[in-house]
Structures are given as C-alpha cells and as structure tokens.
C-alpha cells in the first residue's frame, strides 16, 4: 500500500537485547512518510522499545534505523531532536515549572550556543500552545494541571520542537474517553494539516484501528503483520497476537473495523495450530 511513497523511516534487521533477553529480534519495519503508523501488540511485545529505538533512546545490538536513508546512529543529539520528537509514556517535570517554560524546552535542540533565543523560537512556542489549546494556561504551574491539561502541555512541548516525525508512547493511557479523543484528534490533525509523520503506540485496538493509516502488530519482538486496519483486524490474527477470541465489525460511524472480544483465545490458538 505505502510502497508508492518512499518510507520516511526504515527499520532494518533491528535486534535489541536487555542483558540476555532479546526484546526485538531482527525486526523490519517501514514507516511511510506523512502517515499515521500505530504500533499495537500485547504487553511486553517490544512495541515501546521499538518506538524508543526509532528515537535512538535505545540502541540495538544489530541492524540499523534509516531516516530518509541516513543511519540515525550517525546523527548528533540535537540534529536528531530536530527531526524526530517523542512524547514519553510517563513524562515528568518539576511541579513548579510553568506550562510556558515546559513548552519552551521544546526549542532546546534549535538553540545555538551563542544565540540562545530567537523570534522563530517564540513563534514556534506560541503556535504549539495555540494548537493544543494551552495558551490560556501558560502561566499555570505543571503541578496544578489536570490530567488532560497536562497531556496537552506535553504535546505542546513536542510540537514546539517542530519535528517532522512525532512519536507518542501510549499518549492516552491516563485520560478519560473525551480527553483520549481530544488527544488523538489533535494528533490526527497534525498529520492531515501539516503532513507530519506520526508513530503511535496504542493499547486500545479500536482506537488504533480508527486512527491508523498503517497498523502494525508487534509480537514477541517481530512485526507479525502490517497494513491497513481492515487487513489486520481479523479474528485469526487477533487470536494469535493478542490471544483473544474476538468478533470483528465495522464501526457504523467511521467505517473502521472494531473488535469485540468474547474472551481469551487459548482454544482458538490450539485449533489453528
């Protein structure tokens, strides 16, 4: 599907180990330019590790990750930070830091030694705060924000970084339903309006299927399947990867596939085998 457009990021034969545990095993993954790629998989499958490896927060023992054909291992810390942004799973900042201070930190990779803060930085910060609706909160302290406000402030920080690729590690984990949709709609808007390449790790399969252009099932350190949500949301695949016995339907509102789990799929797996 995405073969027509050259991939923005190409993960090649990536093997990554923690001590003696192989977390990613010769994994290959293309991430298409200007699309939303969602990594999904059961706990411990390596999806978060993969996301962090793409941002070079972990380095693999073998293989490489190419950004527009260039090995990210050869890029400088700030250079890479101007191209790939990442929102951590549980980010934390001092509670007495203000929202504006936090968002300004997103400009860190753009600041040179002798020219610390430019007009361009100010514009980027204001745009990031406007885009996430935190302008009104800019003098508030981090410690005084609600969960939804806090998440938006962090997304604003990542936006201020003005990277073309944005990675988000389970961005909706601690949010209620309305704020989950707010957050993902915002991400989707960034993709559609600015053409940014988005890589998301999501736990909720139905949200994954709804927002993904390319859905990726990571299983035991491998990419088990990738493609459009319609291609991946199949009962056999869900039984294998997620060990659930699920019925697949089409969401009447968005026309995307949704799954309704009946229960664990031990039996189903055995039958398949």
């Amino acid at each position: 599907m995405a073969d027509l457009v050259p991939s923005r990021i190409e993960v090649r034969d990536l093997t990554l180990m923690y001590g003696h545990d192989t977390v990613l095993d010769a994994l290959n993954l293309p991430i298409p330019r200007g699309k939303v790629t969602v990594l999904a998989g059961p706990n411990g499958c390596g999806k978060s590790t993969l996301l962090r490896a793409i941002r070079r927060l972990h380095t693999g023992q073998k293989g490489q990750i190419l950004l527009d054909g260039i090995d990210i291992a050869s890029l400088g810390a700030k250079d890479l930070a101007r191209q790939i942004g990442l929102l951590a799973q549980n980010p934390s900042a001092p509670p007495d830091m203000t929202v504006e201070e936090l968002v300004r930190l997103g400009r860190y990779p753009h600041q040179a030694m002798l020219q610390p803060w430019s007009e361009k930085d100010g514009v980027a910060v204001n745009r990031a705060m406007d885009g996430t609706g935190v302008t009104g909160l800019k003098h508030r302290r981090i410690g005084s924000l609600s969960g939804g406000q806090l998440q938006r402030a962090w997304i604003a920080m990542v936006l201020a970084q003005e990277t073309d690729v944005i990675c988000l590690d389970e961005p909706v984990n601690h949010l209620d339903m309305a704020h989950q949709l707010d957050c993902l709609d915002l991400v989707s808007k960034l993709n559609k309006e600015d053409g940014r390449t988005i890589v998301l790790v999501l736990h909720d399969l139905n949200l994954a299927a709804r927002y993904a252009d390319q859905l990726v099932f990571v299983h035991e350190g491998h990419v088990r399947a990738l493609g459009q949500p319609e291609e991946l949301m199949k009962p056999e695949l869900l039984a294998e990867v997620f060990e659930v016995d699920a019925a697949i339907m089409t969401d009447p509102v968005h026309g995307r596939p949704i799954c309704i789990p009946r229960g664990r799929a031990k039996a189903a797996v055995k039958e398949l085998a």
Partner: protein
Amino acid sequence: MSTLAVTAPAGRRFGIGAIVLIIVGLFVLLTLAAIAFGSTWIPLETVANVILGGGEKTEKLVVWQLRMPRVMAAAIAGAAISFSGYLLQRITRNELASPGVLGVVDGAALGVVLFLAIFSNESNALTVSVAWQPLAAAIGALTAISLVFILSGRQSSSAIRLLLFGIAIAAVAKALTTVFMLVGPVYQAAQAARWLAGAVNAISWSEIQIMAICLVPTVLVALWLAKDLPPADLDDVSSRSIGLNLPVYRIAVFFVAAVLTSIAVAFVGGVGFLGLIAPHLARLLVGRSRFAGILTSCLLGAMMLIGADLLVRVVFTPLEVPAGTVTAIVGAPYFLFLLMRKDKTNG
C-alpha cells in the same frame, strides 16, 4: 488549585531581583560585621576605612591578617560548597541531594587522616609542612569521586546509581577514617578531628589564593554547564528526546560538583549541611530561575559559613570551636524538617 496557579512572570521576575538584592545587602553587612567582631571590637567605619586602604598599623594587622582571611575563606568555601549542592539537587531532581552523598567529603577526610598518619615521626611531629594537608584532602576527595564513577561503570549516567555508590564510598571512607584516628597518636586524632568538623581559623592568605585559583576555572566550567540545566529538569526520556545528551551531561555535572566541593573542603574541612540547605533555601526564595538560584545559593552558603565562624568567635571565645560544628547543629534539624515535610506531601 487555582491559587497556586496564577502568577504574573513580570511580577515574579521583579520579585526575584529584589530578593537577590536584599541577600547581596545582607551578605555585605554580615561580612563587615564578621570582620568587626572578635576578641576586640573594631568599629564598622574603621573596617571600611582599612579595606579602602587607610587605618593604623594595628588595625590593619587585625583586619588584613587575622579577620579577613577567615572571613574570605568562609565566604569562598561556603559559596563553592553551596554551588556544588545546587548543581547536584538540580541534576538529580532531588532536593535532598548534597555534596556529602558523593563521597567527596569523607574521601577528603580520609586523605587528611592518612596524611597525618604517614608524615608523623615517633614524637608525633609532622615531618612535612602542614601546608600539604589541603593537597592530601583534595587527593582523597578526587579518589573518592573517581571510585564512585568507576564502580558505577556503565551505569554512571543513572543518578540513583551514582548516589548509592557515593553513599557506599562515603561509608567506607568514614569507617577507615575512624580506624586511623583510633590507632593513631592522640595529637593526630585531635588535629584530624578539627579538620573533620571544618574550621576556617587557621587559614592563610596564600591558602586562600590557591583555593581561588583552583576555583575560578571550575566555576567557569560549572556556569557553562548550568545553561543546560533546564532540559535536564525533565525525566530522562523527555530530556534526551529534546536533544540533551543526558548521560554525558549528568556525569559532567556530577564531576564538576565534586571538584567544587573538593577544593573547598580541602582548605576548610568537612563542613556539614551547607550544600544541602543553602541551595534548598535559594530555591524557596527565587524559584527555578537558574542564575539567580546559583547566585542566591552561593551567597547564602557564604553567609552561613561566615555566620557560623562569627558565632564560634563571639560565643565560644577563647575556645576555638570548629565552625562546621555550628553548621551541623543548625543544619541537622533543618534536614529532619525537610524529610518530615517531604513525608507529608507524599502521604
């Protein structure tokens, strides 16, 4: 929630400026007072007159040779230790971090005790000049911090690993110090005990010069490193994502903090709690602002050590109680208060 929230940055910035000015003023006053007070009282205007180049011969002698060196030493060492504490509290994101936990102070102590043990003859006299004692302290301190880094090995970028190894090295150094003091001659034990408590009474101008010469480049490096402190305020993943090379940066800050403290304790001894309290108070007073925070914590640290030395001179004369005893007596309860307050906010 909203009472905490609304703060006008302009007002805050003005507030910080005013607070810093007040602290600078207090610092000047305390410095003058510390020179004026002592076994004899010298009026403030005489002190000012002597500093500006006037005064009689005896006044000059007392001010320049007796009072000034210890006040200067207290100011410089107090500031250096507090700067070190400020860096450590920021980089570990922990307000209870202090130079003491790096093993630097106890390493220096061990250096001093070893020096006294090795260079003494049978009649308890030192076989070399006591002027070498600061060098022994510095070697001890730098050995301790090097061991902390070597033992942490590949994990030295993790703040908690460094702190744990620092505490372990400090404990070992402390135990060895005690052993050497117990097996060594009584004179040595007394001399070592004075150093351990921290005192500025015996310091000379040439020692102050050496201390200042060592500190200038270290402070410049520290200030240069301090520009990257804000991104390091975030969690590890976030600060690395915005392009800070956190593992390298953290090691550099730890190392510079260790050197700052080493230089100070080499000359004035194991002054306790300054490096914990001064940066903490500074943060309470001026908030997160970096350079105001550094300046305030240096001034507060300097004032604390000058004040402690002044108290010692005024209250305990003619007994020469080490100034470090005073900082410890005042500092320990403050530390306990911090711990209890932290429990409260966590609970």
